[in-house]
């Protein structure tokens, strides 16, 4: 009970905060289900459900009556928090300090019913949702999972409506789905019910029969299994090649951006993940790759006017060269000294390309325009759907290289340096060359990414190479799982892809991004797809168990 009140209070604070930072109001303009529920109200509801569920789940003994009472209490507290906000707002002008405490917000919070009725509604709604959450936590786990998945897909479809509609419209006769599912603002009500039913049915089917199918696959004779694997691989290749046509313009663009970050992430993964050298200025090499391409190809500066393919080797070479040059002074530094020195390099490069001093050669604040596009034969790679293939090829190549490097002699030396420099040196590893090779390889990948970036944009500006890029790349490799190659991919999808998709929630994109970073690290400190070794380290006590789980996971995927 006490616990439930505490959780409820936290929930109330969260809801009030959401209201005061303007999220509820901003999201209320869009409907999840047309004319029935807006995104703002959905957010309020989801928070109260989650809080109620938490409170109910934490009930000691799990006696049904207490579970329900706890859910109810916490729901009441959450509703009470909002009711308090509405009351306070009626008594004084909160807007002098909190600019989002507008009359519209109160109208939304009281469901347009006047203050007193609204407060009753809030309290009643809180109690009801809390009770519902309690019931949910009492339900059998299969039912609960199915319900959560279906509810999630309806909300997801509503949130991503502007993205799904143009994409579905591309799929020929499937486009009729659009008419049925979406109205001009939100899902249609029959669409929402239909989607809910569809997802419920299919996930219930999977929950029941999934294991049977999986074990059925496993018990196939080895030859059939291999054939199956090859088919799956071929299918994957076909999918990768066909993806841009399937997804249309914008999603292809998102894929290319993710691809660029995968390239960067794979590079930084070598420096930070393999060799354990914390580099906060990784954007420097990205900038060097981009600017080398720009200077060599742009007719605006008119120095060389090379083609993209002519400039690419130089870009990578400059990356490697600067990787070594910047690597030498920091060889003796460790940990955070290294971090700040590299951060400095990143800033120095950005400031230099921006400076009036180097303006005649690098374009200064006005940047460099008209950078050459890549050509294959006579075809110009200009649209995202075409550039996708260039980036895909780059990612496959770099992924292959880093996969081979990881298990090579050099890769093992890097990991030895990561674990303990002194011991590594005592074992006969040449620290200088090992570290420099890590910097150089990482820089080469980054410069490649930079060159493609410059050609894709057609212009480069100093402002694109700020310290936030370095930090973002670091976040993505750690969220993905440090040192893990598939982790980079997962991290890039989560930290680059999702914010790209949510571009229209602009004001709150970074807020959610920040909260998600914290939450992800608290829940999965080892990352979303960790390297097997690191996972073992983090869960030393339970190593045998996790080992078997990871074994089965890697087989099923």
């Amino acid at each position, binding site marked *: 009970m006490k616990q439930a009140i505490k959780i409820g209070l936290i929930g109330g604070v969260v809801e009030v*905060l959401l209201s*005061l*930072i*303007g*999220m509820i109001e901003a999201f209320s303009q869009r409907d999840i289900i047309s004319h029935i529920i807006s995104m703002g109200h959905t957010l309020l509801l989801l928070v109260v459900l989650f809080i109620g569920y938490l409170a109910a789940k934490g009930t000691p003994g799990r006696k049904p009556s207490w579970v329900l009472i706890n859910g109810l209490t916490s729901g009441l507290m959450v509703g009470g928090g909002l009711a308090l906000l509405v009351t306070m707002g009626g008594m004084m002008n909160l807007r*002098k*300090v*909190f*600019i*989002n405490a507008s009359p519209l917000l109160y109208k939304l919070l009281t469901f347009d019913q006047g203050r007193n009725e609204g407060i009753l509604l809030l309290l009643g709604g809180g109690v009801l949702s809390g009770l519902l959450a309690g019931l949910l936590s009492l339900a059998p786990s299969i039912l609960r999972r199915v319900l959560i998945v279906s509810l999630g897909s309806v909300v997801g479809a509503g949130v991503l409506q502007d993205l799904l509609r143009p994409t579905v419209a591309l799929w020929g006769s499937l486009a009729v789905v659009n008419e049925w599912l979406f109205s001009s603002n939100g899902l249609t009500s029959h669409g929402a019910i239909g989607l809910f039913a569809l997802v419920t049915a299919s996930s219930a089917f999977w929950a029941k029969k999934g294991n049977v199918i999986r074990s059925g696959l496993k018990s196939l004779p080895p030859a059939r299994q291999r054939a199956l694997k090859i088919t799956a691989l071929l299918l994957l290749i076909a999918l990768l090649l066909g993806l841009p046509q399937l997804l249309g313009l914008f999603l292809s663009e998102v894929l290319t951006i993710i691809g660029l970050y995968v390239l960067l992430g794979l590079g930084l993964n070598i420096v*930070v993940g393999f060799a354990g050298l*914390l580099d906060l200025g990784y954007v420097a090499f990205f900038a060097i790759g981009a600017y080398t391409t720009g200077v060599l190809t742009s007719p605006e500066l008119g120095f060389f006017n090379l083609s993209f393919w002519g400039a690419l080797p130089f870009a990578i070479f400059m990356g490697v060269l600067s990787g070594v040059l910047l690597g*030498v*002074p*920091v*060889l*003796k*530094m*460790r*940990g*955070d*000294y290294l*971090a*700040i*020195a590299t*951060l*400095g*390099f990143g*800033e*120095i490069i950005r*400031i*230099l390309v*921006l*400076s*009036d*001093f180097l303006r005649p050669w690098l374009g200064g604040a006005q940047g460099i325009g008209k950078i050459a596009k890549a050509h294959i034969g006579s075809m110009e790679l200009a649209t995202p759907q075409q550039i996708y293939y260039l980036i895909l090829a780059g990612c496959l190549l770099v992924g292959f290289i880093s996969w081979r490097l990881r298990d090579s002699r050099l890769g093992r030396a890097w990991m030895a340096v990561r674990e303990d420099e002194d011991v590594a040196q005592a074992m006969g590893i040449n620290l*200088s060359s090992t570290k*420099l090779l890590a910097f150089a390889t990482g820089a080469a990948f980054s410069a490649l990414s930079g060159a493609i970036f410059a050609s894709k944009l057609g212009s480069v500006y100093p402002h694109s190479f700020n*310290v936030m890029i370095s*930090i973002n790349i*670091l*976040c993505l490799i*750690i*969220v993905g799982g*440090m040192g893990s190659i598939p982790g980079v991919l997962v991290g890039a999808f989560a930290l680059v892809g999702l914010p790209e998709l949510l571009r229209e929630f602009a*004001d*709150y994109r*970074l*807020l959610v*991004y*920040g*909260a*998600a*970073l*914290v939450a992800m*690290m*608290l829940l999965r*400190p080892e990352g979303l797809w960790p390297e097997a070794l*690191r996972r073992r380290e*983090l869960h030393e006590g339970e190593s045998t168990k996790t080992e078997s789980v990871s074994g089965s996971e890697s087989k099923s995927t």
Partner: protein
Amino acid sequence: MWKRLRERTTPTDVVMWLIGAAILVLVIWGSTATLSGGKYSSSHWFDFVVFGLAQGSIYALIAMGYTMVYGILRMINFAHSEVFMSGPYTAYYVAAAFYSSGFLDRQPILSLIIIFLVSMATSTVIALLLERIAYRPLRTAPRLVPLITAIGASFFLQYTFRGLYGSGFQAYPVVKILEGEWMFGEFRILKFQAVVIVAAALLMAGLYTFIQRTRIGKAIRSVSEDKEASSLMGIDVDRMIVTTFVIGGMAAGAAGVLYAVMFKQVHFFMGFVPGIKAFTAAVLGGIGNIPGAMLGGIFLGLIESVGPTLFLDGLGIVAPYQLKDAIAFILLVLVLIFRPTGILGERVAIKKA
């Protein structure tokens, strides 16, 4: 002797020394050219130094928070810049209320004290929340994990405050007694700059004595040396960590008001750049080392103010102030080449970094 030296020198050492020497030569060449140019009088240089000191003491105060948290938890508290921002931004509303009611002009000292207290209290609360929610559950996690939560928390706080208070600039009311200047012959010092420098110096001296002399300070130092041994000695490690965050938050809140007095603008993004600078200062001085953080902050402030003119103006480089951060970071690398663990931070860092 020579032979031994030759054997122990690797090619990378030579390259490193060459880089260091090249930077030094450039610095000396630039400085001589500027000084012999005669464009700047001694009072100009005095101005540059005072500007640098004032800016540097703010960096130093923020850097204290970084360095203390680093000392005790071995983590970069990236969200400290938001701890710094939250205080003065919240206290702005108090200051504005005082200003419009005329209280600020009637009782300037008392109002300033209240503003300081509000700012310090807010920053402390934010620092405590950070510790409790984002860092405490991750104490045993690998080193980079809390760094990522700190980055996440930093974003979250920035945009939360933006949502709460708006994305515009708020102008701090001018405190009349702090305006104006004092003249010492041809040398001049602005009143609020003197106040900022003195206040920061007093605060830092106070903090330093607190850490060195009091029981709590000793307990904190012992926890930063060895957590397990300290807990065996009967020190409550959790409480000491919380205390460290409280002290760091208070220092940041105070630095925030000094910043507001000097620059008179607050904004949700105002913490980012001073935060990075202060972190740099902490590393420059030797991270984990409190006097080092102060020294690093002052050094950085001075370089930013004096550096571009002194080193670059004589070389005929256009718009040198655009390059001031580049100069600061190049000198940082120079310092770290010869002292890889910062100016003052030798033993501590080698053992634990």
